């Protein structure tokens, strides 16, 4: 039944090609239906679904467990919000396809299948990122994404050649038994591709041009939904199947990426590019935490990821629709923006604070002082520019010719969701345990390859 999450959006995307207006209306309904199906199937977590009823080793299987469930619900909820606030009917069909592909990416338990979904996501991303006449930025993204994606393809085939099957659990198990070093090699290949979507410098060099072009849709979709799904895949690959650390080159690159992208953000004179650099920095922080391979750190990294995605959603929505506006006449929007940006930095009583708090706590418990100091320093830089932009937007004199402050604001629906997200950040900030319990569970499951394997070998069908 969980296949409906992929099949229904795809079928409707195909079926509404000549009817774009209909696609615009169908999109939120489909995503809502996805959520309904998802929550209806919650009791069935911990199952595999063999597509075409072929045994897992030969065919393609979907894997539905708690981790996938929570990631799917987050992604689909974000998607619901995005579909409701996007009034541009041009991108409804790409969004439908992307929704199917994201669900597929999270559910699939097959190396080559995940490559296919990654490519679908990449192609829809290229299409969406041409919004606001940004063909050049999108082209750069396409070339770089295209070059990087060959590594994933080679990695998938490498797994097949070494393990004899493309099923993640079986081939990882076989290779892990015979020659664990090979898993690491495959993981390096996968990581090179995934780091492009994860926006780690230098793989994330395309981000500012694509995010910063002033489109509201591009950064929201790519930043909050695609990144989250990619983090899922990356953590699944690097934590569940492999027992070893990635080569230290990656770790140092990611550390440098955190600081350098914050400096890039500090330099920017354009809010969109600033936010783009900021999202590179926060995603690098998440990746750095994942690379530590410690359960407590990974749990907080996920906490950080979710709150960050929510905050970025608000920031990019406000920037994409209003540009640099004066919030004096758009107070609700302004408060949402300020709340989210403060949460981004990690100011107390907002969710972001607990993200950084638990992260630092976990890092210190593991005596990983380097990353902790990098996080603190990068937060300091972030604080400077976030404060700058907040003050700019509240106190700048953006006056029209008549000497009045510009009177622009978000439309009602967008304002509602932006405010809602900001309030969620506040609520999580007040009761962090709500989210932390979930991320702890996720981290525990992510590290449990034994369980993952047992589900396959025990053939829990659905």
């Amino acid at each position: 039944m969980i296949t409906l999450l992929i099949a229904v959006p795809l079928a409707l995307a195909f079926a509404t090609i000549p009817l774009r207006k209909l696609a615009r209306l169908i999109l939120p309904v489909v995503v809502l239906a996805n959520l309904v199906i998802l929550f209806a199937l919650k009791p069935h977590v911990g199952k595999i679904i063999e597509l075409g009823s072929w045994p897992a080793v030969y065919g393609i299987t979907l894997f539905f467990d708690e981790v996938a469930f929570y990631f799917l619900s987050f992604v689909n909820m974000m998607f619901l919000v995005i579909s409701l606030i996007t009034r541009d009917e041009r991108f409804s069909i790409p969004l439908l396809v992307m929704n199917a592909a994201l669900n597929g990416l999270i559910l699939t338990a097959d190396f080559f299948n995940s490559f296919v979904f990654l490519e679908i996501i990449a192609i829809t991303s290229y299409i969406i990122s041409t919004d606001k006449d940004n063909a050049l930025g999108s082209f750069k993204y396409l070339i770089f994404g295209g070059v990087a994606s060959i590594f994933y393809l080679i990695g998938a085939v490498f797994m097949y050649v070494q393990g004899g099957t493309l099923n993640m659990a079986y081939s990882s198990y076989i290779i892990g038994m015979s020659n664990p070093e090979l898993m690491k090699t495959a993981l390096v290949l996968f990581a090179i591709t995934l780091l492009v979507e994860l926006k780690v410098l230098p793989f994330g060099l395309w981000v500012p041009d694509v995010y910063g072009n002033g489109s509201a849709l591009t950064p929201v979709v790519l930043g909050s939904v695609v990144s989250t799904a990619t983090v899922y895949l990356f953590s699944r690959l690097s934590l569940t199947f492999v027992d070893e650390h990635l080569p230290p080159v990656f770790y140092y690159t990611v550390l440098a990426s955190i600081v350098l992208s914050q400096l890039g953000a500090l330099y920017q004179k354009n809010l969109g590019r600033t936010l783009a650099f900021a999202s590179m920095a926060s995603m690098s922080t998440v990746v750095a935490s994942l690379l530590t391979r410690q359960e407590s750190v990974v749990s907080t990294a996920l906490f950080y990821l979710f709150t960050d995605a929510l905050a970025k959603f608000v920031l990019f929505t406000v920037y994409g629709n209003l540009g640099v506006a004066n919030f004096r006449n758009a107070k609700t929007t302004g408060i949402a923006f300020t709340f989210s940006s403060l949460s981004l930095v990690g100011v107390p009583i907002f969710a972001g604070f607990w993200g950084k708090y638990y992260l630092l706590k976990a890092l210190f418990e593991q005596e990983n002082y380097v990353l902790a100091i990098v996080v603190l320093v990068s937060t300091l830089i972030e604080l400077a520019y976030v404060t700058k932009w907040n003050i700019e937007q509240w106190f700048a004199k953006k006056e029209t010719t008549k000497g009045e402050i510009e009177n622009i604001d978000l439309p009602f629906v967008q304002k509602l969701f932006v405010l809602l997200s900001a309030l969620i950040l506040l609520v999580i900030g007040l009761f962090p345990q709500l989210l932390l319990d979930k991320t702890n569970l996720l981290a525990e499951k992510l590290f449990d390859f034994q369980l993952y394997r047992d589900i396959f070998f025990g053939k829990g069908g659905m």
Partner: protein
Amino acid sequence: MQNILLVAIIGSVAGYLLSLFYRRLGPIILLLISLYAFAMLWEIPSNTAENFLGYDVLYLTTLGKYFALLSLIVFSAYAIFNIVWIETLKTPHAFNALSILTLAGTLGVFFTTNLVVLYIFWELTVFASLFIVPMSKSEAKRAAVWYVTITAIGSFAFLFATFLLYSKFYTFDLVEISRNLSQLPKPTIWLVVCSMLTAGIAKSGVFPLHVWLRNVHGKAPDTFSAVLSGQLVKMGSYLIALLLSIFPVTTLFPHFYGGVNILSYILIWLGNVSILVGTLMAIKQNDMKMLIAFSTVANSGYILIGLALLDQVGFAGGLFHVFNHAIAATMIFLSFAAVVYRTGTTKIDELGGLIHRMPVTFITYLVGIISLAGIPPTSGFISKWMIFQSLVSRGMFVTEIFVFVGSIGSFLYVFRPLAGVFLGQLKSKYKDVREVPIIMQIPMILLVLVTVFFGVFPGQVLEFIVGAQKEFGIDAFQYEGTKLITSMGYWDTWIVFVMFAVGFLIAAVLYLITPKGKKIPLEDQYTSGEFLHNFDLYHYASRFYAFLEREYGDHPSLENLYASLVNALKSLGKGIDYLVSRTASAYVFWLGVILLLLWKGW
């Protein structure tokens, strides 16, 4: 305590909503909350632990109670003043809400010994006050960014130390940590203590992190400068006092000179430099608010020296100086706010002769600077005297020189606004200026009374200070009634007050019976055949200390140093931006570099 904090937090929302109907309700709510908190707090005995929202985190030390009560006095005065002043603001509701939130945050800081909770309230205070700073002037935007960044340097260092301690002891409770701190290796102790003190140093405006004070105090809304200087800066002093006294600093660090341990000695030197920098820079300022901002730097230096001495007299002196400076700075900034309310400028050379028009404001300022400069009948003298006593008894002569120079210097700089703003000839454009409304006069008069009263009867303040000293195992300061006793002698404030009162009476009588000088308007100038267009230039307020400023005109500036540091960072960012703006070819190039690195460093 929990109730106080909750009332303040809810009050901030209420303040916002009510201000929407009638803007003056906000300050009234702030006043009510302050009074309620004061009354409640007075009843709570120190060393009480309490829950906050179900977490066992609140703990009231005598030190915290002392600082909290002091803050409430400052906030009450600020609130009363604001009732009228608020009408000059464009965004009164946000101002009110954030003011109340600032109060909530700052009280939270004083109510806890849990490091994380302390950090949370600390940041709450910073961010609530951050958005107040740019509310009246658009130039303050940049100042606000500096404010938050430099404060954050401190608070992140603090957070770092907090987690470092957590990773060692698995607790955030400061009392518990201080008990076990000596188990840690020496370098770690240094790292932890220095990082935590950085927060206090940054917030209290001590050299080398004092650079934010000038612009923030100078450009913040006029009354809020009073809170900034009178209260928020004291949060830093509180943290320093708490950390120095709760950690067994004297046993952790080896003794260095004059019975002072090495850490204290370093802090004392930071205090010395602060006094020097603050004094010299204050003399230069033409903006009266910036001038007092630098005097805040100097006074934070005094406080730091007093606290770092960590002994019977010096520590008490430092704590007492906190009180004096808080009250004095509030008085001075409120009187400035009154001046600005009527005249609209803070530039000293644009003003003059306001004594004839605004006598109450003048008296407030006068008493404020007397206390600040440490002239006997006010309480300001007592604290400086105590710090001197301690320094002399230890034979720390170099520091004494600095402290002494700072005192002399403070006469110089506080005199500049006195002469330039209030004395001299009244400028013609201000001839219609009136005294501020009575509601604004009330807090000023009250503060004058407070500072004189505690100058004569310092018993109540000393009780708190002694309580704090006992709490942390420092020898208690000795006093009997109005007689303050040190190892080198004693000082009876009552006798001194009577002496000064008699002197003042004699002076007043002399003033009344001697012939008065002739009042000459500013326009009554004589030149040899030239027309005068700008009479202001002939007022002595313009280029007041030109002769002194010339002596150290091209001094090195930390502000420029920090600015160039930021620019260097930004140029790194520019480099990244350059890489980003390249084509896909360049991206693939970097991919190749990573692969090369991978090939070698697997």
